[in-house]
């Protein structure tokens, strides 16, 4: 799916693929960022084929405008319970949130989940496009690659081409402090071997690791890290 962002930005997908990719975009911040960047590049291509619009067009458009009602802006965000974003930045400890995963036991409404995904996407976009970003990439033992991008106290961990974990197990993320202590970053949600997580409140001297753990996660790693970044 990730390899379709260019074709999507060029409108080169058919109707079915386009819709499928749009659903993918809902949970894939990396593709969301890429599509935005590609759209900017495409706009440069568009400007190169500008040609004088017929004079009559302006009058017709203005006549349409005079009788066309506008769509209102999206309703203001309703005040919701504890803001996960604020909860995260406010927490002293490092927390990781897997993109698209619901937080805690709160049953989020559909639109709240969408908002959450959007905020995650925005956070990831900030990190991935920051001029100050620091990147580290490494192969993962067992297959695939993992990339860490850090900027201004936020970080994105992405994995690609990771084999499925053994039955009943998953990939758990770890934040390793300078003193070697390890703190869980939660489970990394993968779709077709790819997944990304966003974390905030990260000090620049930590490194990140992935281990295979039983599905619910472990308090401390029970297997050797498959990859360590930073």
């Amino acid at each position: 799916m990730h390899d379709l962002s260019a074709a999507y930005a060029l409108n080169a997908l058919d109707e079915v693929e386009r819709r499928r990719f749009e659903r993918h975009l809902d949970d894939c911040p990396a593709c969301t960022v890429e599509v935005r960047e590609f759209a900017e590049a495409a706009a440069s291509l568009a400007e190169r084929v500008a040609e004088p619009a017929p004079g009559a067009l302006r009058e017709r458009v203005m006549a349409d405008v005079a009788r066309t009602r506008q769509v209102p802006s999206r309703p203001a965000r309703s005040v919701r319970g504890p803001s996960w974003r604020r909860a995260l930045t406010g927490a002293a400890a490092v927390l990781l949130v897997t993109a698209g995963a619901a937080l805690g036991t709160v049953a989020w409404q559909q639109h709240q989940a969408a908002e959450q995904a959007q905020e995650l996407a925005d956070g990831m976009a900030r990190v991935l496009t920051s001029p100050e970003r620091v990147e580290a990439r490494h192969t993962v033992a067992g297959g695939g690659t993992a990339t860490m991008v850090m900027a201004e106290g936020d970080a994105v961990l992405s994995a690609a081409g990771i084999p499925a974990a053994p039955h009943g197990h998953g990939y758990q993320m770890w934040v390793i402090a300078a003193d070697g202590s390890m703190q869980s970053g939660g489970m990394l949600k993968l779709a077709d071997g790819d997944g990304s997580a966003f974390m905030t409140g990260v000090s620049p001297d930590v490194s990140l690791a992935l281990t295979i753990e039983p599905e619910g996660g472990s308090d401390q790693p029970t297997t050797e890290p498959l990859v360590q970044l930073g």
Partner: protein
Amino acid sequence: MVGRREAAPVVVPDPAETTEALLGRVGRGDEAAFELVYARVADVVFGLARSVLRDPHQAEEVAQEVLLEVWRSAARFDEARGSARAWIATLTHRRAVDRVRSSQAARNRDNAVASRSNEREYDEVVEKVERRLEAERVRHCLDGLTPRQRDTVTLAYYGGRSYTDVADVLKLPLGTVKTRMRDGLIRLRDCLGVGSDA
């Protein structure tokens, strides 16, 4: 809040006002701001629609629809998700492509003929594109692509072709076309320096 409407302030057009800021005003019903947006983008909207549709009458119809859509949904434009130029170019390209594909679907294509004329259309697209690519930056960046990357990107974008069509015209496997499109766009993006924070 007073229940009475205050007289609208006189807004002097500021040539330095960004299109994004203008769209903010358009979203609040400001027709004067819309006229300024129109003046800035109409030529790109029309030119891009014409590039994809070729027929100037159809291009004009699409341009009219797109520009009205800009008025209608300006309040939904979100600067955090991309620039005004990207938003409008995307609206235009999407609509032009939808129009081209629906008329293509309606046509019953003879494969042999289609394949020949595809090649001719392709040459026309490339020629037209090359004739018009005047701005040094984009030309320079397109030059930085391999010829194959350039073919796939321009055929898809200026020609409004789906990647399966592009594969057909260039006689290439689908996977190859996808890869070239992606590599080409990445190179173009990096060369133009148009990250999402730009």
